[in-house]
């Protein structure tokens, strides 16, 4: 038994009202590619599923002022194909192209990825790299909060899908001399969770010789998607040369705490991958930012 009732909500308010009347026995469903498995395996039980994917506008990608706004039920396939995201936030387009399989990307959503709170979720790592915010709607209103504040522990997010919802994500589109990249290693190129994934974003000076600002995010090396701040500090305001890149990469290896997993990889191999993938992502992002 998956659920007893199923509601296709047509507004955010209707979805929230339905959840309120279910008093914790309801749960939002977007694509359902993770949730349906959890329900089928009996890892979760709900009385009523409240589907948000038919709410008008909830699957739109738009540019407003200098912000890219992505509706919560936008699928990975839409993100992967969006020319706006490919050009002005490539880390997210690249991350989306790695999720699951074509069938999963056609249905799975960015909000689902975040609410599921896996430390190596490709979408979450990319959003963290972009300093993205999420708009949370509940009965008290709507507010924008940093995506980084939403992760509690593996599988647990701060968004209570039985009472509130993410309606959209927003982040600044890359400007001049700014770019980003995503790298990932897994056992095969589809339908496998990352052994390590890395998102990098760099902002260079006008001449393209120095790093002004940088984000380096890595999964799964902590209970939640991880931002490698020491690695970032090693690069910020530095001239771009081999020494600076190596220092940053080694700092990332040192501050990450990958665990051995029987099925995916040992921690030693994961550390080596952090070294290799962080370097690749940095070099690619820097080259793209130089244009």
């Amino acid at each position, binding site marked *: *038994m*998956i*659920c*007893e*009732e*199923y509601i*296709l909500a047509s507004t955010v308010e209707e979805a929230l009202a339905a959840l309120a009347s279910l008093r914790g026995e309801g749960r939002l*469903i977007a694509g*359902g*590619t993770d949730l*349906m*498995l959890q329900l*089928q395996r009996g890892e979760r039980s709900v009385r*009523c*599923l409240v*589907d948000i*994917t038919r709410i008008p506008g909830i699957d739109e990608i738009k540019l407003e002022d200098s912000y890219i706004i992505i509706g919560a039920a936008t699928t990975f*396939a839409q993100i992967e194909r969006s020319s706006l995201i490919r050009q002005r936030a490539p880390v997210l387009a690249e991350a989306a192209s790695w999720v*699951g*399989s*074509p*069938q*999963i990307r*056609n*249905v799975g959503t960015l909000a689902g990825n975040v609410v599921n709170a896996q430390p190596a979720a490709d979408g979450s790592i990319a959003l963290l790299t972009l300093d993205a915010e999420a708009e949370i709607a509940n009965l008290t209103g709507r507010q924008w909060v940093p995506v980084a504040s939403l992760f509690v522990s593996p599988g647990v997010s701060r968004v209570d899908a039985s009472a509130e919802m993410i309606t959209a994500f927003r982040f600044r589109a890359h400007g001049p001399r700014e770019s980003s990249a995503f790298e990932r290693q897994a056992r095969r*190129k*589809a*339908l496998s969770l990352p052994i390590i994934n890395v998102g990098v974003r760099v902002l260079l000076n006008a001449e393209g010789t120095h790093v002004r600002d940088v984000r380096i995010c890595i999964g799964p090396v902590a209970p939640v998607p991880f931002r490698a701040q020491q690695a970032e500090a090693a690069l910020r305001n530095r001239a771009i040369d081999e020494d600076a890149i190596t220092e940053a990469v080694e700092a990332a290896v040192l501050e990450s705490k990958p665990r051995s997993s029987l099925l995916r990889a040992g921690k030693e191999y994961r550390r080596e991958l952090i070294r290799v993938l962080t370097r690749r992502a940095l070099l690619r992002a820097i080259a793209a930012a130089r244009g």
Partner: protein
Amino acid sequence: MAKTYPLKMNLNGKEVQVEVSASATLADVLREQLGLIGTKIGCEEGECGACTVLIDGQAVNSCIYPAMKAAGRRVLTIEGLAKNGELHPVQRAFIEHGAIQCGYCTPGMVLSAVALLGQNPHPTEDEIRRALAGNLCRCTGYIQIIEAIQDVAGRSQG
């Protein structure tokens, strides 16, 4: 007992209405209620693609797709591909290239290929492999399947 709802969808070109349980997946409804058993169930967890159907032209895994999500959508299953007794070009190419052995993966493979060619009529080999990455085949080794799809793409070039 789960509640039931009337589900209206366009199935293989025809408007249908069927009473479905809140708890049903699209694969359940197609196979158990509508008798369309060309849609196969392999893993039942979104890993193998045997249950692939197209929703508004896009491949989805019907084993983890709530039936209610199909409301108002165009659903295409393997049964809807042949027209007037003529197989779809992708189906014919699969036969001609020996891309079918036990046949269990075939409906899903064919539909993933049809979705790809609908969006990208002349894919590269790499694009074909990516489009089929969610469909497992335990028999053919994939080569004949890829050749069959390349053949259809080449023919439509004219």
